């Protein structure tokens, strides 16, 4: 097998993440794909802390810490400034969690995408507000426990379909990726770098602390979430062409759910509901892919 992952490590190993943190691998892989000529805009999230406290920094590229709701708008400004100064070759990377993307930052993200501001926006998704101690976000999946969706009242609404929302902005490139499939992830990062305007990557990043999973299951979970079709890997070009990146294995969702304490309270019928919802969503995705390939 030919290795496609760049060898150079931009992120240093000394950082503050928990053991088995998926978000950290996401930073590492994305920076490998982008190279050093990159500036990162990071709003409040776990990755603020993972980078290290003053005077340390682990990411190896210039970091602009910014307010929670401003990942995209700060990136827009950074890009505009670089353009005016003639430094067009620098990649601007807006890097936010699911809370900073799906919830508080969606206005700034939507604004940037509609203007087509040149940036790669990565949402690393650990499916809750982990930095503040595991509160629900609109990316928290149906049935999951968080501190604000207690076991008696777990999350009763599905996860927001952020990729469809971004694709509806008709930006040049939108894709999902998983830290369990680094080759695919880095390929998509490079493709995003070559595409015009605003690009959006949605990366699933298991979080042992918040998911109540074993740190050594992180990669397994990052693969299972894809294999079960809970988080299928696909790309959307110009909001129109939908393409699956990986064929479905159709592994039953229970294989994924049972490794995580946040789903421990679920009853058999809840698992069935989740399986049904996943199947339905996956059908919807396949339909989109088929329709766009017939065009």
């Amino acid at each position, binding site marked *: 097998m030919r290795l496609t992952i760049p060898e150079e490590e931009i992120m240093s190993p000394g950082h503050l993440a928990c053991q088995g943190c998926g978000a950290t691998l996401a930073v590492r892989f994305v920076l490998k794909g982008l190279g050093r000529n990159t500036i990162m805009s990071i709003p409040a999230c776990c990755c603020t802390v993972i980078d290290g406290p003053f005077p340390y920094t682990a990411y190896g590229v210039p970091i602009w810490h910014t*307010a929670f709701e401003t990942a995209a708008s700060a990136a827009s400004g950074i890009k505009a400034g670089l353009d005016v100064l003639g430094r067009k070759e620098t990649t601007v990377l807006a890097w936010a969690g699911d809370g900073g993307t799906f*919830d508080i930052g969606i206005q700034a993200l939507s604004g940037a995408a509609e203007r087509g501001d040149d940036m790669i926006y990565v949402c690393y998704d650990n499916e809750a507000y982990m930095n*503040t101690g595991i509160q629900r976000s609109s990316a928290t999946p149906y049935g999951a426990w968080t501190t604000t969706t207690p076991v008696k009242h777990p999350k009763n609404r599905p996860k927001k379909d952020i990729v469809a929302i971004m694709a509806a902005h008709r930006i040049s490139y939108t894709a999902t990726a998983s830290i369990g499939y680094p080759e695919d992830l880095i390929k998509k990062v490079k493709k995003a770098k070559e595409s015009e305007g605003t690009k959006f990557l949605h990366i699933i990043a298991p979080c042992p602390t918040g998911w109540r999973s074993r740190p050594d299951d992180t990669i397994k979970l990052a693969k299972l979430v894809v294999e079960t079709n809970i988080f299928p890997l696909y790309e959307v070009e110009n909001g129109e062409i939908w393409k699956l990146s990986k064929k479905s294995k159709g592994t039953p969702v229970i294989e994924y759910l049972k490794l995580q304490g946040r789903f421990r309270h679920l009853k058999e019928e809840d698992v069935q509901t989740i399986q049904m919802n996943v199947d339905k969503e996956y059908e919807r995705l396949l339909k989109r892919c088929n329709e766009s390939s017939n065009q």
Partner: protein
Amino acid sequence: MMKVIMGNHALSYGAKLSRVQVIAAYPITPQTQVVELLSEMCANGELDAKFVKVESEHSAMAASIGASAVGARAFTATSAQGLALMHEMIHWAVGARTPIVLGNINRAMGPPWSIWTEQNDSLSERDTGIMQVYCESNQEVQDTVIQSFRVSEKLLLPCMVVLDAFYLSHTYEPVDIPEQSLVDEYLPAFNPPYRLDPDDPHTFGSLTDSKWYYELRYKIEVAMNKARDEWKKANEEFENLFDRGYGLVEDYKCEDADLILITSGTITGTARIAVDILREKGKKVGLLKIRVFRPFPIDEVRDVLGGAKKVACIDRNISFGHSGIFFAEVKSALYNNSNRPPIWGYIAGLGGRDVTPETVMEIVKRTEESDTPEELIWIGLKKG
């Protein structure tokens, strides 16, 4: 019932005892436990309230205002960045005269990121018209929430209950959690004179030109002014029912004091220890804690400070380009007073830097040894 709880949970219990009906909140360190406990209480059915898990603090305040506008009792809590994001809607809550109670955990503003205590977040809301009360203990936090609803709903003004990050928010103290029936006796159901109601339609907040806007601002000031008496009354009745109370200010060993310290929040407890140590050494030192900051307790401050030879104000905040904010407020309260002791201004403990009894004694010493008042002294500043 006595229970050992953290400061954040004292806010939650205060809200629960006040029978809040709508909670709209967003998590932020160090406030999260307030929201988590309330969300649990709602889930258990312990609290019959609707919890709106909004997507930002701006929306938290907007939703609280909406709830209050139909006549539901609304509560929210936040800190630092979250409070700053709410800022527009705090003006709105005041202008719309919606008596929301907001718990704010004092936390330093970024950048650089900090999660530790400092008062610049809440003091940046000084001129919005929200009332502000700074608490020293968990008991005071719980009780102040209950009192706040009473005063707020009487005057139709929102109120912010303020406590220090970690030094109070995460410190466990025994708190007397009163019987619900007693609180019900103290705090009647919310019944605003106007509300969004199809049976009696009104429009709120429409474009108002200079003919009337001015008068509406005046009415807010009238309410704020009345608030001084309302806080006193609310406290008297509170004392009658619960056997404990808090003033707009609290003076400690001030009667014969030559030098009076001014504090707010948790530095007060530390300063009280310093005063005791200094008193044992024969120094005539007293302490004035400012609890209610808006409306500002001008008369009380004049009364207590009038007899002192020197005043030293400790601010865990800074109005850049001027001075500590409590310092500036106290100085302006004294300016037109016939007894006008000189006042020294000290900045201490920004970003959660510990303020110890030794820090306070150093402040006292420096003030004693100085002949002309200095307005902006940074205590314990590192070189570099």
